[in-house]
């Protein structure tokens, strides 16, 4: 925690503590329902592999967590609107059922009311707009970072090229550092996405898109291509291995020899 607190301040991002539990954690909900629906699930051939979590709500880095914090506010505003308007609708639908054959009052409209409910959504939307707008520079452009990695999509794999020329099929990064991504494609459109670490960035042939991500803790994070790119689209996985800074530095230093090994180049 201390490590993370330090890092948060370093990024000038003390306002939002992303370490709060996700406001709407569906894994919790599904766990409960899974118990209830055990009979149904018993028939399901569960995979033996380790649980892989790719929920953007379960953010594990500065970019994803900033987005998650925006999402959380939008979520509660949306729930408020849904509860009020949906509630009134259901109430009216039940309350005003036909009881007798008398014709109800023929009301054609009410200018004041109509102005009120033109302004009401405007206010809600203005709030969401302001919230989003003030966060966009951070989410999109991010803080400067020491490492830039070129991400190239091709049917149906990702490759990552490091500043020293090393190319790999797995993205290895140090924890707590901002990683700048230059994203491009060799063939069709792809979308690079590691949901727990940041928003997605399209990979376009002949064009370089820029994004960034950051991971707070060492670990392995997953994602996959998020733009239909052909027959193998579903298998175009993203794997991000996050090492401690020290371990990464050691790993990266060890790559120097590999630069000259043709086998490592694609």
């Amino acid at each position, binding site marked *: 925690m201390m490590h993370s607190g330090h890092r948060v301040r370093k990024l000038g991002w003390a306002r939002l503590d992303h370490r709060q539990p996700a406001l709407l954690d*569906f*894994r919790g909900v*599904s766990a409960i329902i899974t118990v209830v629906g055990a009979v*149904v699930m018993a028939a*399901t051939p*569960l*995979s033996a592999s380790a649980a*892989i*979590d790719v*929920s*953007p709500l379960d953010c594990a880095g500065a970019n994803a967590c900033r987005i*998650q914090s*925006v999402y959380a506010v*939008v979520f509660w505003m*949306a729930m408020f609107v*849904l509860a009020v308007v*949906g509630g009134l*609708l259901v109430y009216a*639908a039940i309350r*005003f*059922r*036909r*009881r007798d054959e008398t*014709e109800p009052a*023929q*009301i054609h*409209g*009410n200018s004041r009311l*109509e102005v009120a*409910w*033109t302004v*009401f*959504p405007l206010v809600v*939307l203005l709030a*969401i707009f302001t*919230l*989003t707008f003030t*966060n*966009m*520079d951070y*989410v*999109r452009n991010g803080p400067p970072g020491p490492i830039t990695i070129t991400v190239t999509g091709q*049917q149906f794999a990702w490759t990552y090229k490091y500043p020293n020329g090393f190319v790999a099929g797995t993205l290895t990064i140090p924890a707590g550092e901002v990683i700048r991504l230059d994203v491009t*494609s060799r*063939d*069709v*459109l792809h979308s690079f996405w590691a*949901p727990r670490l*940041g*928003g*997605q960035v399209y990979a*376009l*042939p002949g064009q370089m898109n820029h994004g960034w991500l950051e991971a707070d803790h060492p670990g392995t994070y997953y994602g996959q*291509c*998020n733009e*239909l790119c*052909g*027959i193998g*689209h*579903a298998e175009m996985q993203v794997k991000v291995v996050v090492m401690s800074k020290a371990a990464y530095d050691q790993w990266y230093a060890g790559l120097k020899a590999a630069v000259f090994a043709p086998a490592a180049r694609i």
Partner: protein
Amino acid sequence: MATAEIALPQRRPMRLAGVAEWLTTTDHKKIGVLYIYTTFVFFLIGGIFALLMRTQLALPFNNVLSHQLYNEILTMHGTTMIFLWIIPVFSGFGNYFVPLMIGARDMAFPRINAFSFWLIPLAGATMYSGLFLKTGSAACGWTCYTPLSEKPFAPGLGQDLWILGLHLLGLSSIMGAINFLVTIHNLRAPGMTWFRLPLFVWSVEVTQALVLLASPFLAGALAMVLMDRQLGTDFLGRGADPLLYQFIFWFYSHPAVYIMILPAFGIVSEIIPVFSRKPIFGYRAMAFSMAAIGVLGFMVFAHHMFTTGLPLALQEFFMTTTMLIAVPSGVKVLNWLATLWGGSIKYTTAMLFAVAFVLMFLVGGVDGVFMASLAVDYQLHATYWVVSHIHYVLFGGSVFGVFAGLFYWFPKLTGRYLDETLGKLQFWLQLVGFNVTFMPMHFLGLLGMPRRISVWGNRPDWELWNLVATIGAFIIATAVLLFIVNFLISIRGGRRAPADAWQGNTLEWATTSPPPPYNFETVPQVRSARPMRELRKAQV
């Protein structure tokens, strides 16, 4: 009756003559019925595609469909539901009811009308024929972005057939649009001023203006892809900006979303007042909000491209317009609510579908606002959240609107009511099935599941919701089967309906059920937005 003896041997040729009449008709009502029947068949085909996809995705590492076949079926499901079902079924309702509602004898161009219709089955057959090729049909989703749809990545003929099919549909739409607009502008009965027009006619007016202005852009984009593929040009290939196609495509396809929902707004705006026994609340606001949606609908298209790396300022512009378009949509929902408020609501099946429409559209509107927020869209773009959103709008919205319209207008089309007991059973099954299918897709999106993946595994979080969604899909299928049963029973044996089947407001109820070929014996004089109500009052 004295001729009964000789009438019997004539039955066979008579029937053939009947078929020939349907094949050659230029009567707007017959064409409307043809549209509705044909597109309903496409709805069933698209539904079977959906069930296949849900079966494949029900379990992890499932192997019902191959990657290639899944991608083809995915493409055909989207294309079918959008271009062969929702858009043309509303043309069917428009064909049948616009002339009746404005007090006209037919559409302005009856022969063009027939031609517009007959292009649709032809287009469907053209697209589907790709499925029978060795190389398969188009497999790039209904969006078919370049360069995936270009020759190097989609060498098969199926892609070309898909483009040709869409070209035929575009042609049909554009001719239909001109026909509708000319009809509404020129053939209104005396006294049918713009602000006495039924809101369904308003919705058709705005929709068809969108069709006329937007469809040529899709045709242009597709023509470029086709020329790249067949003539060796390079409009959208290697040398082009990879986003050019998307800009043109969405310049059409975002308005297309409103093309698909506005007529449903219109239908629901007819049904809710009739069964609440109140006038629509804020008629002018309802008409203006549709026009506002039509205009703003052209200015939001790049919100489909927030993650493609557009400059931030441009993204923020499109975020602003996208949020603005939520305002007229919100006004509509609240005006429907106010129409219900203080009413005397009778729950026929049509009304149940109409009220559920408002509620489901509300959900689809609210979950759309999430994606208008740029930051959130960076995570939710192209996930199952989007799948959920589009189905809340286009299924919970548009398709519920279609069923509301089918139950409401069936007595006018056939002179018989659809069975209400079966109808209500269908409604509840469909409402439950719909939400069981698509609500979990919100959760799947939040759990990071991308749309358009042909297989998934190693994601324990996704297992429950995928299974639930698949179960829901089969509940929907059961509901639709119930409708078919209801239709088959009711078309022959349903309760007979009088001319004014529901104490309606609009002119289609002034003539017999079904209406005669010439629609009205005398052209009615219109004095208010609810001419039938005036007529009933005058008779009492």
